[in-house]
């Protein structure tokens, strides 16, 4: 029953691999296809968020401009932040989790293929829902942190904030489902011999990130529920008029928000911990230390949230605690940076585009880390709070850290995905326009910030004398925008007619490189046995593994059924949440019925072909 090797009467002649129609994508539960859909969707949203950023930069190019109204400006920066974090950085990382993790651990799919599809569709619908707000002229406008009391009905009477809290709640469901899925996959579905301490670092960081997802997202989920009740049902959680405390929102938001920062950055750390050794032809320096540092970052990340709130006035004891905790978390992060450098030290380095992005990350992220240490100190923080200095800081860590790591992963794993290299010449153009555009945009913001330019305000006074910094930033932003176009052009061109790539184009050590590029839809004809951390770097072990992974199976492994229920359930969940906006009890309860209906369909639909 559970075995591929034992007698199975019906040989599956039909391969899903050949199915490429639209319906096969809608009903797919294949982690590789879901990964591609995640990536494409996140890239589209990357352009949406980037376009918003360019509009912001045009408005800020000169002081006291009025190209964009203050109201539209509020919507633009709110949606830029919300989009880039929840619809770009997170799902882009999830695209890599999806594609790479099952291949790295030697599994045929994730633990719950249908739930995986559900996550994707919820993400897609949630993203569309959030952006649909533009078309009714009510895009969220209270910034991505949505502080009370600004978000309460008295101050935000429109539907803008409703779109925001409902949209984020929908996306949260996708994240929790995804987190549960990857925890189960990584703990439960490793190939024989793939002990925890033999797992590639990317898989490790996916595991830590998944734990952060399932623990941090519920906190913002409940905070959003409170906000929704305050807005729609007259509760007083954050309403001072009824005795509520607006600062409580800040606590809840940042209890989620700080682990969220590590949700964004740890996948990138995982990527470059795999890429740097591959292009240094050396095992990762201090593997266990890098693993433990990652776990430690995830854990301490829970104890630093109030460093976002030093200006609230929590008192000297609380402030001191959070200053200390914040400075401590720099230690494991610094440890990782030293490990990457030590890995490169004395290696035979190959500066492919993927490697360039890794080195770029180490450099740029360190700058962001240093400015982070600066405002970790409460007194310094008071000077920098809500200024462009902070904007510079978090773009250095999120773009310079998270996104550059993911782009490294893109160039590294693309040959596996479609059997073709991404073009290296265009890749270098992508890298250098990114480096120049990015630094030109954000480095001057350190100065405009320290000179007193506040964030989230649609213009600034000429008396501040920050014109030149803003002009540099705007020019940089357009160069950075160009880099995104180069990347997309490279993706499209290489996808169609790139140079063909072999199974292991980089001579990398992990299991995903032991199978053909692109992989079979069942990934592994047979599941290999792993004996070390770098299985493909040991000639004997490599031969043993490839004897299994490159073989033609006598019979195709049984794969899960495609299903149209995930997309329906995702639509039902989105609809149910959207109906919350009415604020009418019976409509909300009616809205839950389709969710119940499709949940039952789901439960009674066989996940695998009959007889298995």
């Amino acid at each position, binding site marked *: 029953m559970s075995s591929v090797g034992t007698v199975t009467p019906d040989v599956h002649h039909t391969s899903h691999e050949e199915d490429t129609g639209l319906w096969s994508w809608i009903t797919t539960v294949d982690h590789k296809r879901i990964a591609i859909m995640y990536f494409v969707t996140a890239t589209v949203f990357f352009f949406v968020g980037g376009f918003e950023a360019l509009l912001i930069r045009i408005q800020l190019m000169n002081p006291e401009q009025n190209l964009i109204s203050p109201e539209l400006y509020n919507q633009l920066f709110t949606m830029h932040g919300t989009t880039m974090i929840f619809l770009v950085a997170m799902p882009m990382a999830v695209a890599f989790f999806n594609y790479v993790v099952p291949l790295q651990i030697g599994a045929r799919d994730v633990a719950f293929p249908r739930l995986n599809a559900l996550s994707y569709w919820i993400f897609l619908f949630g993203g569309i829902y959030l952006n649909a707000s533009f078309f009714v002229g009510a895009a969220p406008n209270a910034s991505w942190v949505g502080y009370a009391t600004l978000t309460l009905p008295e101050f935000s009477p429109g539907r803008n904030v409703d779109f925001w809290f409902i949209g984020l709640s929908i996306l949260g469901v996708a994240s929790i489902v995804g987190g549960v899925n990857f925890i189960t996959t990584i703990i439960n579905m490793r190939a024989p011999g793939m002990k925890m301490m033999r797992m590639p670092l990317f898989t490790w960081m996916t595991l830590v990130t998944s734990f952060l997802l399932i623990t941090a997202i519920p906190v913002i989920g409940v905070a959003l529920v409170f906000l929704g009740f305050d807005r729609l049902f007259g509760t007083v959680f954050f309403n001072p008029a009824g005795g509520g405390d607006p600062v409580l929102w800040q*606590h809840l938001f940042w209890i989620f928000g700080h682990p969220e920062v590590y949700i964004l950055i740890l996948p990138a750390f995982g990527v470059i911990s795999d890429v740097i050794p591959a292009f240094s032809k050396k095992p990762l320096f201090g593997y266990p230390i890098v693993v433990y540092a990652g776990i430690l970052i995830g854990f301490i990340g829970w104890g630093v949230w109030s460093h976002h709130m030093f200006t609230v006035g929590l008192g000297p004891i609380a402030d001191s605690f959070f200053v200390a905790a914040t400075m401590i978390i720099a230690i494991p992060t610094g440890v990782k940076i030293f490990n990457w450098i030590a890995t490169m030290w004395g290696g035979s380095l190959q500066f492919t585009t993927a490697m360039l992005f890794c080195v770029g990350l180490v450099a740029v992220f360190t700058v962001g880390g240093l400015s982070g240490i600066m405002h970790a100190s409460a007194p310094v923080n008071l000077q920098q709070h809500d200024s462009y200095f902070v904007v510079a800081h978090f773009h250095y860590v999120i773009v310079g850290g998270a996104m550059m790591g993911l782009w490294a992963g893109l160039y590294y794993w693309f040959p596996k995905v479609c059997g073709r290299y991404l073009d290296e010449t265009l890749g270098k153009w992508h890298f250098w326009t990114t480096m120049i555009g990015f630094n030109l945009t954000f480095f001057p913001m350190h100065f405009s910030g320290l000179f007193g330019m506040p964030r989230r305000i649609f213009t600034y006074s000429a008396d501040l004398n920050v014109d030149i910094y803003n002009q540099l930033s705007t020019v940089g932003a357009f160069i950075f925008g160009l880099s995104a176009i180069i990347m997309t052009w490279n993706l499209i061109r290489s996808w169609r007619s790139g140079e063909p790539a072999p199974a292991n184009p980089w001579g990398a050590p992990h299991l995903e490189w032991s199978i053909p590029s692109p992989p079979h839809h069942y990934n592994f004809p047979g599941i290999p046995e792993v004996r070390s951390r770098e299985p493909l770097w040991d000639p004997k072990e490599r031969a043993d593994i490839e004897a299994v992974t490159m073989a033609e199976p006598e019979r195709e492994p049984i794969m899960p059924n495609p299903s149209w229920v995930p997309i329906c359930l995702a639509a039902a969940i989105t609809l149910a949440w959207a109906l919350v906006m009415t604020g009418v009890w019976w409509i909300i309860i009616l809205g839950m019925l389709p969710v119940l209906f499709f949940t039952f369909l789901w439960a009674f639909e066989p996940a695998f072909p009959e007889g298995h």
Partner: protein
Amino acid sequence: MSSNATPAANSHAADHGHGDDAHHPTAAFYVWIGVILAVVTGVEVAIFYIEALDAIEAPLLVILSSAKVVLVVMFFMHLKMEPRVITWVFIAGAVLATFMVTALVILYHVLPRFAV
């Protein structure tokens, strides 16, 4: 759901990962746990009403209800009989949640007393 759940019973015995083949406890054992839980609940309510214990009421009640939680998790939810990794998964959530409640209580109810 059903087809995924199937192999669990078999794989338990076959697997190498964990040592214990602990059989499920008997029904009588469960009833005992239920009785203990009810008794502890009774003790808690008694503590609530006994004024002499007011000074140590809160810590006492927290300890007793934690004991109840542990009993339910270990025996009703079989955590004691499961491989250790499940405990770690659960602990990760439970510890962080406890940490959050404690931290917020300290921030809102303890630190203000030290305010200058």
